[in-house]
């Protein structure tokens, strides 16, 4: 029976838990002020850009069609108004919780229990954006789940959306290893390509040495040179493939 690993250092333990059915704690990856402000900045930039392009295009189009200045100004007032008022709510309702800015930062609005919020909730949280532009940041800083006033009213949270990547899962594990060692090797293999070459080989060699110490039979027939130069590949061959040896 493996010992439970130490407390997972993943989430802010001060944040109140989100419970799913059977009272299972969902450690939702809550988005903080930084990523949320970045998403909002992207959205605002898009709004300004679209407003400018739309004004020019609309003016040219209506002028070509032959409408008078009054109607052009009317159209401009209406489109700008709808753009500013409707952008956030329309996108969040249509995509169930994302705006272009949120997509870019990989965020999503979810309900307080991790579910899909109702249309009314999307409306509420975006209608009070006027106020949150002023007081939102201090409110978010004070809240353990980084909620702004609109989130309190609508009962929503903003979370990071994790991408579905091909996870590297170890299939062969030295018998006396615990979960932290498994997690270490898995995270090394997942990130090996992002590491600098010298770091990659020095960490890799230490991990191979660990396998060598605990389960030498997994490393059979590996030449010293390949361990020296491509420890990641050696680890992959040894621990990912399911073979008859283990």
């Amino acid at each position, binding site marked *: *029976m493996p010992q*439970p*690993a*130490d*407390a*997972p250092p*993943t989430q802010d333990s001060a944040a109140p838990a989100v419970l*799913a*059915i*059977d009272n*299972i*704690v*969902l*450690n939702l*990856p809550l988005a903080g002020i930084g990523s949320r402000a970045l998403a909002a900045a992207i959205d605002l930039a898009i709004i300004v850009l679209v407003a400018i392009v739309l004004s020019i295009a609309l003016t040219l189009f209506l002028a070509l069609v032959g409408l008078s200045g009054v109607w052009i*100004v*009317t159209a401009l007032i*209406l489109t700008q*108004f709808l753009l500013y*008022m409707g952008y956030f709510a329309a996108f969040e309702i249509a995509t169930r919780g994302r705006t272009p800015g949120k997509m870019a930062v990989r965020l*999503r609005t*979810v*309900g*307080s*229990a*991790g*579910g*899909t*919020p*109702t*249309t*009314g*909730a999307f*409306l*509420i949280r975006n*209608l*009070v954006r006027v*106020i949150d532009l002023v*007081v939102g940041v201090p409110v978010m800083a004070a809240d353990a789940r980084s909620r702004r006033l609109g989130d*309190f*009213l609508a*009962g929503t949270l903003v979370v990071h959306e*994790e991408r*579905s990547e091909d*996870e*590297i*899962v*170890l*299939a*062969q*594990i030295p018998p*006396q*290893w*615990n*979960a*932290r060692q*498994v*997690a270490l090797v*898995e995270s090394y293999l*997942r990130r090996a390509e992002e590491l600098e070459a010298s770091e990659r080989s020095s960490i890799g060699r230490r991990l191979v040495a660990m396998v060598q110490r605990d389960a030498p039979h997994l490393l059979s027939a590996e030449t010293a040179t390949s361990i020296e130069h491509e420890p990641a590949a050696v680890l992959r061959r040894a621990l990912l493939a399911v073979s008859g040896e283990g």
Partner: protein
Amino acid sequence: MEYNRFVALRTPIWDRFEDALGRAQARRGKALDYGELEQLAFDYRRVLHDYALARSRYADTSTARRLQRLAALGTRLLQRDHGRRLPSLTRFVTHTFPSTFKRRLPEILVALCLFLGSGLLGLAITFVYPNFGLVFTGPGALEGLQEGRLWTDALTEDIAPMAAAGIGANNIRVALMGWAGGLTAGLLTLYLVFYNGLMLGSVIGLTLHHSLVGGLLTFVSAHGPLEISMILVCSGGGLVLARGLITSDDRPRTVALREAARDALVLLVGCLPWLALLAAVEAFISPAVGLSPQLKLAIGLALEALFLLFALNPQSMNTSMSTSSDRPTQGHTP
């Protein structure tokens, strides 16, 4: 260790779950037949339990990360918050808005009283300083007033569509500020109501002083009554929010606030179509010189009566008044 046995044993379930979620996501719930849906719900529970196990025993491993992602995604797709759907348009018009309006009448009346009080205050000030109203109209209006012209004469029919769009956008913005301003513990809402009352009172006083009040009242009679109602109802919504924020009774504040937000949203959404209608009236009918003052007044009163009929709909009395929230399952649409 058991990690690889756990993974080998349970991966087929996780794969099936992820695959079903992917299909449900791609085609918005119509991709699964009943059997698959039942399987999905069953697998969701198993994934949650595996996730709880993986988090405590195999923290930070790839498997724990994958299960974390699946649990979050499954919860998002399979669970709808509050289980409440938006009411249909008919139901909103016949029940949701009227019952909310009646339940929140105290907040709306507070806004009305403040408005009337500040209006009287504005009027009273102009008896002492007749030109106090110029604070709101701008000093440029004085010259015209002395020549017997109102500043509203600038609104002519050829710029009506532009004026309608501008006025409508502005009215909705003010209404929204009054509504969302409830989040400042109601201070911004109360300020806006006070400001608008003071403005109306002092502007009436100003025109009274220049013997032009008839012209002003004719100008505002078509849109004024309803516009004031809209500002008061939206501000009432703001006060509903403020009340939820300040007095949560014995409930958690987030719960009280969310309930208040629902009512406040109903009040605001119910006002939006009327605000759009008002913009058209204010731009096309109010400045029209061809229409008699009596007709304008009749239009104004008719609009107000229509709104009150909608808001106080007597048929909504017998249903859903007893509950604190309007549930679609209760009562029947007459």
